[in-house]
């Protein structure tokens, strides 16, 4: 069977290929000199043209530190309990005054799904998810962050989504 091509009846008077072509060419030529939107990533980063990442961004974790330079964590065990991907390893310890503190606190960032439940559940506001996205490492073991490393992180922490203020005002 012969292949038929559907031809659309166009208003002949309204069709002008020459004009359309010239118009297109002038349009593309104008674009040659317009402002370029490319963000040249490693040099410009997110300061470029207001492309900041959201303050609600949930990135790799950060442990808050008190004025004595110790982790705020009291090893209550809520965060490993709530963590849906089971990526927090916590072994609690207790000092002479009976204060609990984490002997071991490790987060496997590869297992983490960055839901932010740990930050939400923490009674001491110790563990946070951070506004941070550059996490490359040379080995997989580098992605298990221990307590020391979590305390050393300095990036801003996420403000999470607040149901009472859904638009973040």
């Amino acid at each position, binding site marked *: 069977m012969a292949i038929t091509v559907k031809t659309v009846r166009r208003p*002949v*008077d*309204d069709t002008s*290929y020459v*004009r359309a072509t010239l118009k297109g060419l002038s349009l593309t030529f104008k*674009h040659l000199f317009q*402002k*370029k939107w490319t963000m040249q990533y490693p040099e410009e980063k997110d300061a470029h043209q207001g492309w900041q990442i959201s303050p609600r961004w949930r990135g790799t974790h950060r442990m808050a530190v008190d004025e004595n330079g110790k982790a705020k964590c009291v090893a209550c065990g809520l965060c490993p309990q709530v963590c849906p991907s089971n990526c927090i390893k916590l072994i609690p310890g207790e000092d002479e005054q009976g204060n609990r503190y984490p002997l071991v606190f490790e987060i496997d960032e590869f297992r983490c799904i960055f839901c932010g439940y740990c930050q939400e559940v923490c009674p001491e506001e110790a563990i946070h998810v951070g506004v941070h996205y550059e996490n490359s490492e040379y080995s997989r073991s580098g992605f298990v962050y221990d307590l020391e490393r979590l305390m050393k992180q300095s990036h801003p922490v996420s403000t999470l989504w607040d149901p009472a203020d859904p638009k973040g005002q």
Partner: protein
Amino acid sequence: MNAISGDAFLVASSIKVLVIFTMLMVLIALWTLVERRVCGFIQNRLGPNRVGPLGLLQPAADGLKNFFKEETLPPFADRGLFMLAPMMAFVPALLTFAIIPMAAPVPTPWGLVGTEIADLPVGFLFILAVSSLGVYGIALAGWSSNNKYALLGGLRAAAQMISYEIAMGLSLVALLVLSGNITLNAIVAQQQASHTWYIVPLFVAFFLFLVSAFAETNRLPFDLPEAEAELVAGYHTEYSAMKFSMFYIAEYSNMVTASALITTLFLGGWDIPFTQWDNAAPWTLGKTFATFAAFWSKTLFFMFLYVWVRWTLPRFRFDQLMDLGWKVMLPVALVYVMVIATVVAVLEVAAVRIGPLYMWILGAVNLVIAVLFFWVFDRRRLIGGAGGSRARRVWRAEAERTIAAEHDAALERAAQGD
């Protein structure tokens, strides 16, 4: 100074081959970058700018990558032809550039050296002949890949290139009628002598040639042979590494040759406009460099046009492509040849000497043809347009209704009067 001869000719030719080949390859490499950057600019991006200053080393990186990539050979392919096809596309593409004079002759202690590799007496016929050999490479690439998309690409390339070759050849017949010569050096010299580039007396031929050059080089809006959206990558679907690169180089080389040919035939070649000092002996190196720059600025403009058009126009459908080739370009070219031949004959009878007047008379004829051509081609609306005419049509319909009503009323009154 005499033209170079004997052993010196052999040495000079060898040097020219090396120099021009190198120049062409570097230009092609750089033009792949220009293409990508201009594309980026048109889309408000920056394009590749990371490798070297302004991204200038990007082509080197690409080339190196292609050398190290795996050469794939599909088990279902026709082995011999599959290996042969890239070469058959590559060689004619580079060969055609050999006869294009790029500047005024270079004076050397051994005699005058022309800036083309070979000043062939058959002139642009050589280019037409060799460039049409390129289609074998593409068609065979499609055939030997034993892949339906590649085969379709190859078939399309064959059909398209054969169709547009006719319009291309016929547009050059008009030029032949006017110049009476086919060697490129003579054509350039005539344009210089008559103080007019052939784009003026042969504008329609220029336009036809330009459009068919786009089709011949398989560039958008005629890039159906590789139509990514329909045919994966068309005829070079199954190719990788340097074999793929060779198709790419062939495409860009064809583009350079087509641009250089348009420059030579219609824009005075290496002629510098509005001056005469560059056209005559004594030849000096200064003249060579100046005319070289003139030639390449014209050629690079056309190469830019290729890129510019590519990122502006969408691809034709295959039947539209064939319609344009056979139903528009071919008849127009045929009629045009007749008209130009007639005008040239009439001018000869009227004893008008070849010079500015002669050229401008022909130019006026061309203007008329061009207007007619665009009128019909553009559906009876030259640069009218999409916007205004609808309102005008509504207005005209209303006016016609009013006139008809008045006419009816007049008839009625006449009937009552009786």
